[in-house]
């Protein structure tokens, strides 16, 4: 009996901290947010108990609807651009870089590892009116005078791709690297063109990595708030900015909670789509 009891106690000690942490500071807070999203609010910003759907109704008004459309557009564009650039890079590192592959991966880890704000500040300098990019464009005669690159959607997009590109390359590389090279050679030997081999062998085998990359980019890019402010000039408001404004500036917790619940739901849909797609891909094999 003593031994069994000791084992029970031991497992309890091992598990208690993490279970408490998750239950008390992740699960319970999320439940409070969900409850707040249905709560009322007095004119001074205090949350009143009650049940109303007004917060959600307000979100489907035109102003907020645009925020959702903007966020979705920005996240989708970021994901597509990251995949379009990240796939060839991952392919090159996996199949063509040879002994240089570890060094290339390491070089990609460096910007990923450096403080996010410092990386963005580098782009603020580069894209500024007197910045190196404008200087270069004027010097090569492509521009007559510097133009305002900062404060545009393009600048936001550059920052987003810059922030999320490493997150695309790593999972795709991880999917490409273990592909049996003999499969690809077999494709070529059997008379398939490189395009056919790629579409028939390499791409399907690397799809799980592509899906993971899409998830890693799409979900967090909807909650970003610093990049649109610093590079996009804060003109285009996305979900992340809206949440910051509602909680920290307008002190509107119920409405902010409703936005958070919707963001959480959208992420959940993203994760479910990912898992379904992954299952379909696995079933194809």
């Amino acid at each position, binding site marked *: 009996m003593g031994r069994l009891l000791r084992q029970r106690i*031991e*497992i309890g000690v*091992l*598990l208690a*901290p*993490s279970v408490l*942490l*998750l239950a008390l*500071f*992740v699960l319970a*807070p*999320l439940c*409070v*947010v969900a409850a707040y999203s249905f709560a009322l609010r007095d004119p001074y910003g205090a949350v009143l108990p009650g049940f109303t759907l007004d917060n959600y109704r307000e979100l489907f008004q035109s102003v907020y609807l645009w925020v959702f459309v903007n966020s979705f557009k920005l996240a989708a564009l970021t994901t597509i651009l990251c995949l379009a*650039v990240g796939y060839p*890079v991952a392919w*090159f590192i996996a199949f*063509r870089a040879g*002994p240089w592959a*570890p060094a*290339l*991966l*390491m*070089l*990609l*880890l*460096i*910007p990923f*590892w*450096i*403080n996010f*704000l410092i990386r963005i*500040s*580098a782009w603020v*300098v*580069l894209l*500024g009116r*007197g*910045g*190196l990019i404008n*200087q270069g464009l004027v010097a090569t005669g492509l521009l007559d005078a510097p133009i305002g690159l900062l404060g545009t959607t393009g600048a936001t997009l550059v920052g987003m791709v*810059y922030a999320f*590109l*490493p997150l695309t390359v790593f999972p795709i590389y991880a999917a490409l690297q273990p592909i049996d090279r003999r499969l690809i050679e077999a494709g*070529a030997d059997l008379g398939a*063109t*490189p*395009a056919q081999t790629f579409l028939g062998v390499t791409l399907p085998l690397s799809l799980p990595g592509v899906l993971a990359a899409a998830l890693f980019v799409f*979900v*967090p890019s909807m*909650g970003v708030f610093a990049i649109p402010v*610093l590079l996009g000039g804060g003109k285009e408001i996305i979900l*992340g900015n809206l949440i*910051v404004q509602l*909680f920290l500036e307008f002190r509107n*917790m119920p409405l*902010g909670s409703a936005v958070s619940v919707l*963001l959480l739901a959208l*992420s959940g849909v993203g*994760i479910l789509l990912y898992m379904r797609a992954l299952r379909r891909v696995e079933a194809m094999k």
Partner: protein
Amino acid sequence: MTAARRPRAPGWATRTFVRGIAGWVTLLTYLFMLAPIVVLVVFAFNSGKSTVVWQGFSVEWFGKVWSNRHIARALNVSLIVALASAALSTLIGALAAVAITRRRFPGRDLLGAALAAPLVLPEIVLAVALLVFMTFAGVTLGYATLILGHVIVSIPFATLIVRAAASSLDPRLESAAADLGANEWQTFRMVTLPQLAPALFTAFLLSATLSFDNLVMSTFTSGVGTTTLPLRIYSMLKLGITPEINALGAMMVVANVAILFLVMGRYLPLMLKTNRR
């Protein structure tokens, strides 16, 4: 006749083209990823107030950063929070990782998934939830809320790193220790722990770095007087870029890269080996 040129395999042209494209995309991507950082570091040594026009070499901005009270205070807060949250995260994550990999209990898979969940949930929602919860519970925002928030952000990484190490341990070593008369605590302290030490160190460094660089969680969980370094930098950046930020950025680049090599130093030889197949 051997003198005739061998006909090229079908699709040769497309193959070269595709290879060329991938090579060029890779080259440009690396330029895109690394050039801004190089420019930032170089211009940190610029004299004069401009962040874009080179006016001569100087280290005066590093001195300015060093003597900036706000930055020193924020650095202090960031270091305290990073060390405390990394220690907690590593401890909690390691306990859970050992339980998940070495013990049987109901709900094991669920706990494993739940501990990884903060990785795929939007951080801003977790941060907002903690803020709402603390307000609801009447807790004043400060060190405690910051540290707690950062533990939530780093716990998936700490757990995954220790899990990976714990699952590759040889269970026979532990039973050998038991056979030799060691009790459970002795076995843990003298056999299991030394083998897990490198993973614990990696988990700690990674958690500390994640905390030190965190902006989103800190935005919602820091209180009066607990402004972290990234929060300070963010408000400085909103006011406009200054050479001071460049100098501070250069210092953080060096620190971040040093820690990266410290963490990756162990894995790099391993990576090189697997790639030489």
